[in-house]
């Protein structure tokens, strides 16, 4: 299976959201990483067929996905950034409704609903109204609905928003176990969501992919550029202004800092192993 994005662009009036994006995705997990407003959601909406590209097209195995229509959507599982539900629906009603529009055979839909609600730990809440759910529970329900049709292409937009750390880890393991024969796209600005499970990370900025590769390869971009140092408290305000700070920890008279810098930020700083978060800050630090 080959999902190709061919010179995709989207312009909303005079604002370019996505500009000339091309890539080819095969089975595996892909992380679309970028700050808020980088164009990730628009790109995902174009892949899903929700938004019409101003230019370019999305092809699955050489066929235009919009022309494929139902055949393409039958392969698709999607969790939008803002996931809604009809008021009055219980979790089970919601899952059965989504199963219906996904065309699942009713007996199988009921079985699959039970399985997935169990998988996302909502089986005890199956008959409770969705409007009474917490943000994390709604997100888990959203993940469950995306999996209903056992999609070959799974697209998750900010899937871990509202999940607690334990749920995040559970979600990552769940997704990791599903990647063998499907294309999974996770769009996020949370580095840890994709750092360890993605086969490829595509970093987006101002509507373009600026970096593309496996996490280890991308991290090499900042090799030799990450430092740890202790800065006296009185020098800290000036230092903080000048440097790209990843972490800062106040000790007695000093601030221990992790810094991304192409040159040694100050005397006594020691070079450390870079992470994807360091890379992210290197590229998006100016947008904070």
């Amino acid at each position, binding site marked *: 299976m080959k999902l190709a994005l061919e010179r995709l662009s989207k312009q909303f009036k005079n604002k370019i959201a996505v500009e000339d994006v091309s890539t080819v995705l095969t089975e595996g997990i892909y992380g679309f990483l970028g700050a808020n407003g980088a164009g990730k959601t628009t790109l995902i909406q174009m892949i899903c067929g*929700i938004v019409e590209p101003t230019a370019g097209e999305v092809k699955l195995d050489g066929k235009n996905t919009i022309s494929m229509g139902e055949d393409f959507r039958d392969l698709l599982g999607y969790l939008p950034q803002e996931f809604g539900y009809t008021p009055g629906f219980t979790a089970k009603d919601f899952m059965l409704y989504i199963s219906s529009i996904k065309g699942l*055979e009713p007996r199988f839909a009921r079985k699959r609903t039970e399985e997935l609600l169990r998988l996302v730990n909502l089986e005890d809440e199956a008959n409770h109204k969705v409007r009474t759910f917490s943000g994390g529970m709604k997100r888990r329900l959203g993940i469950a609905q995306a999996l209903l049709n056992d999609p070959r292409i799974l697209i998750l937009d900010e899937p871990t928003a509202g999940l607690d750390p334990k749920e995040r880890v559970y979600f990552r393991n769940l997704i990791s176990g599903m990647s063998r024969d499907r294309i999974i796209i996770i769009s996020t600005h949370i580095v840890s969501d994709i750092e360890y499970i993605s086969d490829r990370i595509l970093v987006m900025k101002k509507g373009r992919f600026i970096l593309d590769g496996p996490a280890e390869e991308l991290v090499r971009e900042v090799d030799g550029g990450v430092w740890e140092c202790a800065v006296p408290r009185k020098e800290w305000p000036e230092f903080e202004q000048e440097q790209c700070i990843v972490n800062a920890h106040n000790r007695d008279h000093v601030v221990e800092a992790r810094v991304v810098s192409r040159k040694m930020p100050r005397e006594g700083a020691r070079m450390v192993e870079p992470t994807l978060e360091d890379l992210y800050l290197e590229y998006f630090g100016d947008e904070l």
Partner: protein
Amino acid sequence: MKNRKLKRYLASVQVPGYSPQGLQETIARAGEIQFFPEKQRMTNLQFFRNQLRFIGKEFWGMKFIFTGIFLYLILSGSAEPDSWIMTAAAISGPIVFMADANILCDIFWRGMLELQMTAKHSLRKVLICRMLVSGIADFLILACAASAFTLAKGIYLRQTLLYMVVPYNLMCFGCLAVLNRRIEENTMLYCMTWGILLTFAIILSKSAGIPLFEVRYTGNWLFFGGISALGAIWEMKRLLKFGGGNVDEVSVGTFV
């Protein structure tokens, strides 16, 4: 006799030769049907039937209650052109359509639209399904009510139908126009407001002594009926085009 026929039939059947590959293929296909129900999908007819389950009890309840009240009014009230029973007939359209607006607004709920646009059965199909159900139910209710009115009070059927259908069309036109403007969670509120405005307009006309139901006003009713029917058709086409469908549904989206 039967046996001879059967023998002739059996003799005519060409049994293909044994093919190990064919046997494997048959077993594999049977296995797929048996063990992989996830690969089975509903036909369009099954989808339509399945969708009926998601039209809530409130919808049918509202229709049922309305029909009961209306029949009671018809059988108990006076049917003179200046009587309130005619006014009740006229406001029945907006009231009947209120439940329809609710089931249509449900699928345009914030965040729900995107899910529906990426599902196998397009939003257009879901819309058509709901419009058909509500349209057929309303047609039956209005036709029955108008017939009962005619039989009980001896008024021309066409006249009664006109008084019921024109406000119904106006309500339909307004609500579809609201849906097309995607006001999301406020859609139902705007539809209800439109319905209440129409209802009040009819009641106020009656209170102000405007003889709306006299035969000389039939031309006006027909004029508004024509305009509202054309408007409703136009808005319905727009909704089906931009609200869902394989090609057209892609024109809606949120930014970044």
